[in-house]
């Protein structure tokens, strides 16, 4: 068989992991792997997107995702424009499309969009000619975070099939949890969602996850613990008894860490609430992949930018 790899990539947009096939996910991860080499060069730049323009269209605060996309685009020699706007209008859909079309008229090739409304990226993709990458839409999805989590786990274990991954915390409000869940299931891993019933409805079982409300019940059997950030800004007080209570029941404490598998891999999408969902020493310890996730994020986003602009 020929070793020439000619995969067809047909997607002009990257909107969710739910919509990708396992082969497509594998293709992004393999492409990302090739891009990690660029970040190790003395000149960390290739001309693949020279002359293209990427716009970071952020309607919600974000530092690392925006920076990560910006750096990824620059390593591919694209030009980067940052556009941030906090919207207060109730008619957000219309504002979004109008804003994007105005920016597009200046000559834009890729929109990277973060918005508080689920489905915002998809709406945008229907109304612009440029490629659209979803950088987080409400509690719906955050596909590049999902892909970089898959990438980081695959690099650590050499595979995804058969691994047991716990995603812990505020599942209901988490787009990261949803993207991780779709991606991990498609790639053959087992997903255990852990959180209080108020932040983890049983309905997640329909998406193929095990739903557990007692962290200690599964702590010793998982290969990966992905600790989600407690999103104080999204939580209604009735869902969340107290911070101390949350840490006692669902935090990755020293006591729980001791009961994990010896080679457990600890992840967190950031930014961390140190001492709340995760103890500092664990986050900074040898089994933490947190900074590796951030580093891999650049390569994964380079792959995403490259692929959506080179779709067949």
């Amino acid at each position: 068989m020929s070793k020439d790899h000619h995969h067809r990539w047909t997607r002009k947009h990257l909107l969710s992991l739910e919509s990708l096939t396992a082969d497509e996910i594998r293709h992004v991860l393999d492409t990302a792997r090739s891009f990690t080499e660029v970040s190790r060069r003395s000149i960390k730049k290739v001309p693949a997107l020279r002359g293209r323009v990427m716009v970071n269209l952020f309607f919600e605060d974000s530092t690392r995702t925006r920076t990560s996309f910006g750096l990824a685009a620059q390593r591919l020699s694209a030009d980067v424009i940052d556009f941030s706007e906090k919207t207060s209008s109730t008619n957000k859909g219309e504002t979004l499309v109008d804003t994007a079309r105005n920016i597009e008229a200046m000559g834009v090739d890729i929109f990277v969009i973060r918005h508080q409304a689920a489905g915002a990226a998809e709406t945008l993709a229907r109304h612009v000619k440029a490629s659209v990458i979803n950088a987080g839409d409400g509690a719906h999805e955050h596909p590049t975070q999902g892909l970089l989590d898959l990438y980081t786990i695959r690099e650590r274990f050499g595979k995804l099939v058969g691994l047991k991954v716990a995603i812990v915390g505020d599942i209901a409000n988490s787009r990261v949890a949803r993207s991780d869940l779709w991606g991990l299931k498609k790639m053959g891993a087992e997903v255990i969602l852990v959180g209080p019933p108020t932040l983890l409805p049983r309905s997640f079982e329909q998406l193929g996850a095990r739903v557990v409300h007692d962290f200690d019940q599964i702590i010793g059997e998982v290969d990966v613990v992905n600790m989600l950030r407690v999103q104080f800004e999204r939580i209604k007080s009735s869902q969340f008894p107290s911070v101390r209570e949350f840490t006692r029941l669902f935090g990755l404490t020293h006591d729980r860490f001791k009961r994990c598998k010896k080679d457990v891999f600890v992840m967190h999408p950031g930014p961390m609430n140190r001492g709340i969902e995760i103890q500092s020493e664990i986050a900074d310890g040898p089994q933490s992949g947190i900074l590796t996730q951030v580093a891999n994020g650049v390569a994964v986003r380079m792959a995403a930018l490259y692929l959506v602009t080179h779709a067949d």
Partner: protein
Amino acid sequence: MRTYYDQNDLKSVIERLTDAIAAAFPPGKPLAIIGIRTRGDTLANRIVALLGKRGYPRIPQGTLDITLYRDDLTSMGPKPMVRSTEIDFDINGIPLLLVDDVLFTGRSVRSAMNALVDFGRPSAIRLAVLVDRNGRELPIAADFAGLTLRDVPADHRVNVRFVEDDNVDEIVVEPK
């Protein structure tokens, strides 16, 4: 025009190419070899093995993926998989021998040179190809060629196949 070269022909073409390289770079003089993925890399492996048999000390060898440097990606059919470049030695100040299977338009070589200058400043870049065919679109020429074909019709391709990549050793001139 001859359109088929079998495994024995291919072997002697590589031998001839290696002779020419050896004459220009005697053992002990600095040299590093960079193969352009995929078949230029395979050819580089074969040349290095032959030079090894002739008593050359270990020659630093790297692999170049030029996908990200191509100027024709948007007009291509199925896009090639982006693969990594592996050059784990310092290319500054040493002569580099760039190796590819077929020299046609010259665009791959241009892309390869653009990629190489991102890694440093070699003292010289020389080009070795298995087949030097007509059809250049850029002012680029091979320093070493195993086989020169001057009248391949424009609508024909020269396909080099290696056992390592394609399970067969052959050179075929065939319609696109």
